[in-house]
């Protein structure tokens, strides 16, 4: 469903050029959930934004369902949608929930707007009472539910998730993750999830790739992650670090390049 070959992203030019993504290859099968893990600045979000068509400066091949994401193909909106990290900035402050959910339908010329909006709201566990609220009348978790409902309005095959829970309260995080799991099953979605949180990845994904400094360090399935048996030293260090702060671990952290 998702094919990425020799993806390179460079920001800036000449001496100031930063290679944010270097020769990244991965593919995700239909219905599969794939995770991209890495620390801040490892290029995982950049790779995701390339697939979302939001980053024009890249080379290589990146395709969703055989459609290259490089051109502004009219089929892409119904193939790929995305949920952003910060629900406080991903909803238009002057659009009601109703408007936010109707916009994709109106843009794509899909009729039957009212019932579809209501169905989408109940799909993400929000009652009809939320339909005409403004974002400032919603909590962070409710906003993220609206953002997920909006991403599913066009019934895409692929859902890109950029740290969908890291801006939320711990108590709400689990609700959103379970909602995403349920929706994935109900709509047979292919998911590409970016996170620095290994627990989230272990909960959500079938396979994952670990990124460091723009390159993929290793790919593994989630069982390997659960058994804590990664191949690479960098991944082992990441696993140790994810258990929480430990003076001994922190003292032994090495920079891998």
């Amino acid at each position: 469903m998702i094919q990425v070959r020799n993806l390179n992203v460079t920001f800036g030019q000449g001496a100031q050029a930063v290679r944010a993504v270097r020769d990244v290859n991965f593919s995700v099968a239909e219905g599969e959930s794939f995770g991209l893990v890495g620390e801040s600045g490892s290029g995982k979000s950049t790779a995701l934004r390339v697939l979302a068509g939001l980053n024009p400066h890249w080379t290589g091949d990146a395709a969703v369902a055989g459609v290259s994401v490089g051109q502004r193909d009219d089929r892409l909106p119904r193939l790929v949608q995305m949920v952003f990290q910060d629900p406080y900035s991903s909803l238009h402050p002057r659009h009601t929930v109703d408007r936010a959910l109707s916009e994709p339908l109106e843009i794509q010329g899909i009729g039957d707007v009212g019932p579809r909006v209501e169905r989408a709201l109940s799909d993400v566990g929000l009652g009809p009472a939320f339909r005409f609220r403004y974002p400032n009348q919603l909590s962070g978790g409710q906003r993220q539910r609206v953002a997920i409902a909006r991403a599913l309005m066009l019934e895409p095959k692929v859902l890109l998730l950029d740290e969908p829970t890291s801006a939320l309260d711990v108590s709400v995080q689990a609700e959103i993750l379970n909602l995403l799991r349920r929706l994935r099953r109900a709509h047979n979605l292919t998911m590409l999830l970016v996170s620095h949180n290994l627990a989230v990845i272990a909960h959500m994904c079938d396979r994952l790739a670990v990124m460091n400094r723009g390159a993929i360090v290793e790919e593994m399935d989630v069982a390997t992650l659960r058994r804590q048996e990664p191949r690479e030293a960098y991944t082992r260090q990441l696993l140790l670090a994810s258990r929480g702060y430990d003076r001994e671990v922190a003292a032994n952290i090495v920079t891998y390049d």
Partner: protein
Amino acid sequence: MNNPRTSGATSNWRAQLLTDTPASRNQARLGQFYRGWLQFKRNKLAVLGLLIVLLLIVVAAFAPWIATHDPYAQDLSRRLLPPGTPGNWLGTDEFGRDTFSRLVYGARITLMIVVLVAAIAAPIGLLVGTAAGYLGGWVDAVLMRLTDVFLAFPSLILALAFVAALGPGIENAIIAIALTAWPPYARIARAETITIRNSDYIAVARMQGARTARILWAYIMPLCIASLVVRVTLDMAGIILTAAGLGFLGLGAQPPMAEWGAMISAGRRYVLDQWWVATIPGIAIIVVSLAFNLLGDGLRDVLDPRKS
């Protein structure tokens, strides 16, 4: 006496507006509006400004019924009468025309200038600014250098040149003022657009396949309008003064039209002996300009996007 049924109906109506669960888009929009009004109402000076502006509108709309005399009827036997004279309680000018009636009819011209200038300049500024800010690149460069050219001229000077070229008259004065009023709006709209063009909700709209025109119209402009409304309201005082200035110089409204600036100009010859002829329209200009400024200040408190 407190009628329980009326107060019940009032609180019901208020609850409908302030509800957290509106039942339609219009109710949600009205609710937002009502919340804004509640906030605006707390600023007493702004409410005073609003009342004066409303009074100006009422006076302009019902001028024939409010005016006590024909504003163009001359009566040389009753020229230059002081305020307080029975029959002409704000006095008369050098042709014996009633100052009060001329002020009332002048409100129409003032309001027309303000409304037309705002209606021409604000949309141009909004369109130029949002397009430049969103599209960036050479579009931005071309539009903003054009804006710079217009900004480089002092507005009254450019208006003078324009009126001198096209001939004096109220319509040309309006076009000239509008032509000099839009560049600041374009700058504001562009600055606002640049801060929001990379936000996630714009990225979402792009992913949904929205065209540039739709993104500008449905996503960017609604966010720029608030600061633009504030700026236009604050500028209205300046527009009135510029129009009055052009009228004073004889390049705006032409005699015998009852325009406040032209009335001051006509009265300046008598300013030492019959001070009221020039002073009364001057006071009218001050009051209305001040009212627009107070209103703009109040609107800024309510609409400022940085606060919401």
